[in-house]
């Protein structure tokens, strides 16, 4: 089984904090990390490979630095790494991103199973997985929390819904996006780390993947960001003070007037 896991390099949101005084983002040396959900997608891919045989290829669209994230993925069990990188991809929305990633998947010979994270912690749209599937013309399932079986050319899994979960089955090739509940990712092995150091990352540009110039980057995007701003928080505040009993009495009063 040929498994492709899409991984995105993202800024570590933990490092980003809103400074309430200036209402700007305070960033002290934001680190780039592998999108946390993609770690779970990778782990599931590696587990499926271990159980059913096959290869795991990690694929990322991003600047050359994203190669570090791919190496990390190799340390965690991926066999091959592919970076699609071109200045022309900059500013891509999800429509342009899915064109690029699906072209890259075709270029490397397709896949039986494609795994994505539920969403990326920067763009937060959760649109890339379903978009790739639609462009490749294959079925997909989102919010997958468990793979039940993957046999005889079909995969059976549980996907989360707002009021519970559905167990569904689809024939391969197929795509799924995973939630964190699906597994506990492993830490890199020594062997994996060695491999990560030496592996040659396949790097493809827009021409290599046969990208349509009208569907990539800022120019190929269907959406346009017109403004970015920091969220405003409401300012009104009344502090209740006094001894514990006094404060509780005031709270009771407030609650009684509200309920």
């Amino acid at each position, binding site marked *: 089984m040929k498994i492709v896991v899409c991984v995105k390099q993202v*800024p570590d949101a933990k490092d*980003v*904090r*809103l400074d309430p005084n200036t209402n700007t983002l305070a*960033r002290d040396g*934001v680190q780039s990390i592998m999108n946390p959900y993609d770690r779970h997608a990778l782990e599931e891919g590696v587990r499926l490979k271990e159980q059913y045989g096959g290869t795991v290829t990690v694929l990322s669209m*991003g*600047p050359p630095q994203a190669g570090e994230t791919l190496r990390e993925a190799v340390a965690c069990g991926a066999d091959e790494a592919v970076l699609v990188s071109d200045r022309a991809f*900059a*500013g891509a*929305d*999800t*429509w342009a991103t899915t064109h690029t990633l699906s072209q890259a998947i075709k270029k490397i010979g397709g896949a039986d199973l494609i795994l994505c994270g539920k969403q990326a912690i*920067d763009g*937060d*749209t*959760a*649109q890339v997985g*379903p978009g790739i599937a*639609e462009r490749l013309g294959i*079925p*997909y399932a*989102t*919010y997958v929390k468990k793979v039940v079986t993957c046999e005889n050319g079909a995969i059976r899994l549980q996907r989360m*819904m*707002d*009021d*519970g*979960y*559905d167990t569904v*089955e689809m024939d391969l090739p197929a795509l799924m996006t995973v939630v964190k509940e699906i597994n506990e990712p492993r830490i890199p092995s020594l062997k994996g780390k060695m491999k990560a150091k030496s592996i040659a990352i396949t790097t493809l540009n827009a021409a290599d993947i046969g990208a349509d110039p*009208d569907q990539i980057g*800022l120019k*190929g*995007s*269907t*959406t*346009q*960001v*017109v*403004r*970015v*701003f*920091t*969220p405003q*928080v*409401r300012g009104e*505040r*009344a*502090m*209740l003070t006094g001894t*514990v*009993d006094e*404060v*509780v009495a005031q709270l*009771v009063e*407030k609650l*009684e007037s*509200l*309920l």
Partner: protein
Amino acid sequence: MLRIDIEACIGCGVCEQTCTFGAIKVEEGHAVVGDNCTLCGNCVDACEVGALSIEREERATKGNLADWSGVWVYAEYRHGRTAPVAFELLGVGRKLADERSVKLAAVLLGSNLAGQAEELIAAGADVVYRVDDPSLAHFTDDAYGNVLTDLIREHKPEIVLAGATAIGRSFIPRVATSLATGLTADCTDLAIRAEDGALLQTRPAFGGNIMATIVCPHTRPQIATVRPMVMKPLARDAARQGAIIDVKPAAARMKSRVRVIESVMEEQDQVNLCEADVVVAGGRGLDDAKGFAQIRELADVLGGAVAASRAAVDSGWIGYPHQVGQTGKTVAPKLYIACGISGAIQHLVGMQSSETIIAINKDPNAPIFDVATYGVVGDLFEIVPKLTERMRGRNAR
């Protein structure tokens, strides 16, 4: 490409501070942009000397945008119930449709839909497209996606809204991709731009740390998923008139490559978190599961639902369905009581539109106090049990 006019740049570093992505830095006296720039344009607006600009090669508009007219709402229906978000979308949809002087339509897909379409009309829809078919009994991305896509192709609405629920966030990207148009995720604000009637779609990104306003300039429809509990439904008006149009799609379009084996409804809480009037929430300040029990007690006494910060969920004191915030639920109850929650922005985005917020925290500088209507600086282990007792006494009376 982000262009930097090195002559004009004064090396003030404002752009470096504004960039959420750490993509621009001042080096050797002027700004230098890195490969990870997303072309979001934030720094362009921030630069006081106008040294920055984004070079856009305009994309060609396909077809005539004016052919597309009307506002549509996907009315999610599952397990015998229209999702509350459908009514919220009709609320905001009505406003957008009136501003554009167009009709508001709802699309209702499922099986055994008797009585549902009438409710959508009472909630603001002028037209309901209804597909009532046994093959839509279970949600599948394929069948629901095909049917909605076909309806959009046929009727050409300019705007399509859906709830940013597990279902909406799953199949709407498929619809947008097959229509080759833009999709904005998880919006919290929608407005019409006066100059050209474009839909301004505002959404949190970056874990709620930034808000972005997005447009879809060259293609139609403009599609957005919208966070539940953010928009306000209209008051139900049974006297409202509207048309119900039954649609019979070809059987092949309602076939799915994904087979639903079973659909399990999990034990819901006695009080549904998103619909509760009172929510009592606990965070890491509760110390352990035993401490967290105090939150349940207070919630019980107040007849409210229990919620938690991610820290409390990650510690295993309570299940993920109770998490409020960016990666959990959005709630807007009449009263939200936050105990031992610091008020990280990712938590605030999920609860700050609550009518009244009470915060109990021992740290006077905790950011939760910035959004609190009433704040109490103190030890929750002293305050919460006493408050529970007093309120229990009141109930007994």
